[in-house]
Every structure is written in structure tokens, then in C-alpha cells.
């Protein structure tokens, strides 16, 4: 199947280095300490953060830092065919672990000892790149909850089909069986915190694909910062500052 036409257009009309349209909103779950919705094309994810709060399971309490817990689940209606169970399966457990480790690396946990931070991410619409959208949504939700972080964490995926590196794969391109590289970075620090890949790639091609994904992450970071600044200005305006 042809994923990149001879004119250089992908199935959804994008160019190989073009990301899908981004949209984000903050403060969508009133009861949570912080929340956000992150949309990348047709993939829509909602994240809610609770914390820092008292640890519920005393045996897991850490005296010098905060405990970070994360749960990833997919809504039954998120995929084309209705799903039976959206959490508890292997893929959800793996993504929960990945998101937890990525966010834990950037939260300043030593500032909140003996407390717990819960991150819940749920996929409302799945069209490829759900892992990346979850990390981006979690970053926004943590910033909304005013939890101190080293830097924002942004994530983007890239693949390699028809001998072309492609940025931000959608579901059809992802299911093609080609390589899918997911990268998570701390944009201002220029550090990589998450790097995963499916399938195989020769090392020099991998380098190109990873650099493309990192560029995508930086573009997401620019957008997220705009959303944060706009949200803060709105809050100040409503407060009458």
C-alpha cells in the first residue's frame, strides 16, 4: 500500500514533516487539582491530576519524596469498534508505566515528601499517537495543578514508510507495520526522557527519524507554552489582577 504518494502527500493529505493540528484546553475537570484535554488531529485525550495529597496506601509512603501514580485507560467508544475493557490489559499497563516514569522524572518530587500525586489519562478518541497525546496532556494537567516541575515534557512520534521519515503517525500509518519511534523530551533542557521504538531500523535512518520526532516535540512545546501563558492571562483577568 502507498503511504506517501509520488507528489509527496500522505493518506490524510499531510506532507511527511507535517504534524497534525494541535488543540489543548486546561481546567476541564472541576473536581481535579489540575486537568487538560489534548487533541492531536483525531486523537483526543483527557488527563486529570490529583495531588499532592495524603498517601492512601501507607506501605508505599516515601519519607523523602512524593509517590507518583499513573493510570492509562481507553474509553469503550475511543476506537472504531466498541472495546470491552479499556484498562487492565497489557498494553494499558505498559503505557501507564511509561507515562508514570516519564512524568516522575520531571516532577520535583523531593519538595513534597510523604504525599501522592495521581495522574489519570483517558483516551477519548484513538487515531494513533495516543501515548504521545497522553504525555502532553499529563504535562498540561500537572502545570494546571501547580505541581513544581523541572521542565515541560512533550512527546511526539515519527515513523519510516515508503523510504520517507514521517512525523506524527496516525492509526493507519501506525498499523502499517513499519517502525514507530516515540520520543519524549524536556524541551528547554534539551534532554530525552522517553525513547521507544517498534519494529527495526538501520542506525543512520533511526538517527534521522529520531531527530524528526524531536523537532515535533519542540513544536508541541511551543504550542503548550502558548496555551499555558494564555490560560494564566485568562485566570488573572478573571481575578481582576
Amino acid at each position: 500500500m502507498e503511504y506517501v504518494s509520488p507528489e509527496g502527500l500522505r493518506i490524510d493529505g499531510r506532507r511527511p514533516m507535517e504534524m497534525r493540528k494541535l488543540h489543548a484546553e486546561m481546567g476541564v475537570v472541576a473536581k481535579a487539582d489540575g486537568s487538560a484535554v489534548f487533541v492531536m488531529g483525531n486523537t483526543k485525550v483527557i488527563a486529570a491530576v490529583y495531588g499532592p495529597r495524603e498517601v492512601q496506601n501507607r506501605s508505599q509512603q516515601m519519607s523523602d519524596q512524593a509517590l507518583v501514580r499513573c493510570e492509562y485507560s481507553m474509553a469503550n467508544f475511543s476506537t472504531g469498534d466498541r472495546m470491552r475493557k479499556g484498562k487492565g490489559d497489557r498494553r494499558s499497563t505498559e503505557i501507564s508505566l511509561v507515562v508514570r516514569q516519564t512524568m516522575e522524572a520531571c516532577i520535583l518530587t523531593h519538595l513534597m515528601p510523604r504525599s501522592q500525586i495521581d495522574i489519570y489519562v483517558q483516551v477519548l478518541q484513538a487515531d494513533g499517537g495516543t501515548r504521545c497525546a497522553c504525555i502532553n496532556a499529563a504535562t498540561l494537567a500537572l502545570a494546571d495543578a501547580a505541581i513544581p516541575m523541572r521542565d515541560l515534557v512533550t512527546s511526539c512520534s515519527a515513523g519510516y514508510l515508503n523510504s520517507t521519515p514521517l512525523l506524527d503517525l496516525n492509526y493507519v500509518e501506525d498499523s502499517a507495520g513499519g517502525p514507530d519511534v516515540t520520543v519524549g523530551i524536556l524541551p528547554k533542557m534539551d534532554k530525552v526522557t522517553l525513547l521507544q521504538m517498534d519494529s527495526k531500523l538501520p542506525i543512520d535512518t533511526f538517527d534521522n527519524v529520531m531527530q524528526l520526532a524531536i523537532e515535533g516535540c519542540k513544536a508541541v512545546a511551543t504550542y503548550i507554552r502558548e496555551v499555558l501563558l494564555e490560560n494564566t492571562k485568562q485566570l488573572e483577568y478573571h481575578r481582576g489582577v
Partner: protein
Amino acid sequence: MAVEEKPEELVTPGEVLGRAAELRAGKGAYVAAHNGLVYASLTGRARTVPPSPDSPDQRPMVEVIGLKAHGAVPEPGSIVIARVTKVMARLASVDIMCVGPKSVREKFTGTIRQQDVRATEIDKVDMHSSFRPGDTVRALVLSLGDARAYYLSTAKNDLGVVSAESAAGATMIPISWTEMQCPLTGQIEQRKVAKIGS
């Protein structure tokens, strides 16, 4: 030397605020050990606080003021308002509801031990004559306590029961340091009463 007034900037986590050699990191900022720069850790306005003239460290402090306030947390030395949940032979368990003027977001447990109820004759204290479940108490936080509860004290004139309900269900009126009277039935009940005001 005139100090130039910079308008406060809106920053996001990860933005550079300055060098650790020139600035101290306050709330909402942190120092990265590997390159000696001060970064923001919260979203908000970055404010520079000039150093106090007598402090040994003459670097100004930069802090980031966010708009979302975290709930109040009891600190040793703060006055709290709590509701009594359980009264036992040697201690009373309370739920802390307010710290100073602010209410808490999630409840904290506190303990008032027999020796901390009053200042005099502390070994002759009868817990049931000092507190009853449901009473509202004003107390001082002694320490963070153990894993389960904060340690509180009511051993001062303005600490103790501020409001209590009688057996008949009416709010009782304090009549002395140790007694409160029900306005409906005239019944007198024993409490460790707080004297608020001059």
C-alpha cells in the same frame, strides 16, 4: 545606584530565570546543579525580591507566583480549628478543619493527649470532662506527630472547646473555665472551655 524596575514576566516551567551566582531560587524556582542556572518550576509571574540588608547572602531571590493556591497544611505553632471525633481515656482524636483563617482541602487527623489538655495538674485530667465527640475545639499544633496524626495542645486560656452541643441538641453557653450550660434544659456539662477575646 538606581535599581531598574522590570515588569514581572509570565514564565512557564523550564524557563531560565537567571544564574545561580546572581540569584537565589525561591518558591516556584530551582537551581540546576549541572549548569548553575535558575529555572522556573511553576507557571506564573516571576518576581525578584531584594535581599534584606543584614543577611549574609546578598543575592536577590526570585520566586514564581502561581495563581492556584494549594490547600493549607498545619505547621508546628499554628492555631487550628478541629472537630472532636473520638474521646478515649488518655487522648482525644480530632479532625482538623481550618488552619488559621483558611480551611483545609483534605482533612488531617490530630491528637490531643491527656498531658496537653491544660497547663496545670496535667496527670489528673479526665478526658471525658474535657471533650465530647462533636465539639469544636481551638488548638495549637505542637508537632507533626506520628504517621497517623498531628499532636495538638489546648493548654492555654484561649484554647479549648469553643462550641459544643448539649445532649438536648442546643448550642451550649460557656459559664466558666470548666463548664458549659444548655440554654434549653439548663443542664451543665463539663468541658475545657476556651476564653476567646479579651
